[in-house]
């Protein structure tokens, strides 16, 4: 194992620690009602608790804050350590059918406006801020208070469309910029080192690009390979880079968002249908080799074929989403084992006991995820090529 990877694991573990610590603080001293008991689990006797599934979801889900970690910022009157988050607070852009367009520079500012778009857990407020009853008598922001705030302010009648550039969207822009930097430099290498053998990054990427062209684009798209190859390349590298960065601490798991994979699958779907040949549509609505009454009497076959058009991209989106999310849950769950066995920090022996096993398993899963990180974009790209190729195929009717 190289030093670099070890660093990654260490960072991952450290990142998890800091978030748990933050959560401990957030829930401390809360008086829970029944609903919150349900959401956050049993409270420990000493007043600290970790809700593992909550923390795991926080790592998985998209957010309006790019949270890095929390640092101790002092102690409150009861002697407990206070934490201040190190985070990039992202702006909100909302269209509300009742309130119209709502813009706010961050979550805090949005809450200060007295507006909550929908029910949500706002965990990452700066402690000590005064925002309309969000702060308790000790100057702490509490989830409980926000819940109260929420109940009063959310307009159930309104339809809210959240168009904010969230953490995942921002991460995607960064991934896109990285792709641009990497591949324009690779492209420059071809002009700078013209007529010479490829070298370094150029030869690595060339290997992948040529592999995709020979094994994906050409076999399934044939004569149209060149037309769709840039799209396939973008898909592959975009998802692959996203997955690799998603494995690093502090980064969003882009392809673990169903919205992201759905958008990519919809793009593939649109390209597929817009390039569908006459035979493709004939196959859907007048499938050759099927008894006429199944097509025009009882239109079962066209129905099945029509549904089939949508199940393909649906499977595409769900496969990628589920694979990436599952990997993240595995890693997070295994790391969380330390905190579960450590009994929220009360049992040092339990925590230390499980730690070697937890770290070992995390390493194994992490290695597996590195493989999944490249296999999934490959499958997505391959199936995209297959779907487009199938739709563009022109059959000779005499074959049927």
């Amino acid at each position, binding site marked *: 194992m190289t030093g670099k990877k070890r660093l990654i694991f260490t960072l991952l573990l450290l990142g998890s620690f800091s978030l748990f610590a933050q959560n401990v603080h957030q829930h401390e001293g809360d008086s829970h009602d029944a609903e919150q008991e349900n959401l956050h689990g049993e409270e420990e006797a000493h007043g600290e608790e970790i809700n593992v599934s909550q923390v795991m*979801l926080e790592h*998985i*889900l*998209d957010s309006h804050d790019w949270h890095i970690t929390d640092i101790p910022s002092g102690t409150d009157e009861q002697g407990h350590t206070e934490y201040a988050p190190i985070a990039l607070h992202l702006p909100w*852009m909302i269209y509300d059918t009742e309130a119209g367009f709502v813009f706010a520079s961050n979550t805090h500012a949005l809450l200060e406006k007295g507006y909550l778009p929908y029910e949500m857990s706002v965990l990452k407020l700066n402690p000590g801020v005064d925002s309309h009853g969000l702060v308790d008598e000790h100057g702490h922001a509490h989830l409980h208070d926000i819940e109260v705030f929420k109940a009063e302010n959310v307009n159930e009648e309104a339809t809210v*469309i*959240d*168009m*904010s*550039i*969230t953490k*995942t*969207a921002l991460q*995607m*822009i960064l991934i*896109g910029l990285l*792709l*641009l930097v990497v*591949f*324009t430099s*690779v*492209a420059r290498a*071809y*002009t700078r080192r*013209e*007529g010479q053998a490829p070298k370094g990054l150029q030869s690595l*990427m*060339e290997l992948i*690009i*040529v592999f995709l062209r020979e094994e994906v684009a050409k076999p399934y798209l044939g004569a149209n390979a*060149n037309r769709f*190859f*840039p*799209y396939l*390349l*973008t898909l592959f590298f*975009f998802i692959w880079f996203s997955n690799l960065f998603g494995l690093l601490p502090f980064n969003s798991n882009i392809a673990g*968002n*169903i*919205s*992201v994979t*759905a*958008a*990519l699958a*919809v*793009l593939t779907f649109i390209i597929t249908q817009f390039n569908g040949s006459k035979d493709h549509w004939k196959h859907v609505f007048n499938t050759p080799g099927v008894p006429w009454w199944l097509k025009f009497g009882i239109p079962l076959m066209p129905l099945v074929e029509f549904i089939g058009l949508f199940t393909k991209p649906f499977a595409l989106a769900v496969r990628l989403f589920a694979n990436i*999310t599952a990997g993240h849950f595995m890693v997070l769950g295994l790391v969380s084992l330390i905190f579960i066995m450590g009994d929220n920090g009360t049992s040092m022996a339990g925590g230390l006991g499980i730690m070697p096993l937890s770290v070992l398993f995390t390493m194994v899963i992490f290695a597996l995820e590195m493989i999944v990180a490249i296999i999934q974009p490959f499958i997505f790209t391959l199936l995209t090529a297959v779907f487009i190729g199938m739709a563009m195929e022109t059959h000779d009717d005499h074959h049927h």
Partner: protein
Amino acid sequence: MIITPSFGLFFWTAVIFLLFFVLLRRFAWKPILNALGEREETIANSLKQADQARADMERLQADNQALLKEARAERDNMLKEAGQMKDQIIGEARKEAQAAAAAEREKARAQIEAEKNNALLEIKDTAATLAVSIAEKLLRKQFDNQAAQEEYAKSLISELNNN
């Protein structure tokens, strides 16, 4: 929740992806794929040229071989011709020499013959003179009749000449 798609993220994903797709296609994929295509073409051409060069080389080698063979044959021919010429020259020289020698011999023989004939004639003359004088002396003593004796002697000499 986790499986609830959010329209905002869906929308931004599509926008961001398409934006970077266009940018990457323009600034990365096109130059890279063009360069790869050019290089593949260059490699294919180079291979073809190498094949051609090999074929050319083989042909040249065959040509060389043929030339060499020809040269060797020519050399052999020249050697043979030279040999023939040598033989011929030697033969001619010998023939000439022989002829010259033969002519010389012939000349010598003719000379000897002539000398011999001369000598014979001289001997005959001398013999005749001697015979006559001897006979004269003999006859003078024996015969008084000068005239009849001379007549007889003359007939004898003419008889000698006729021989």
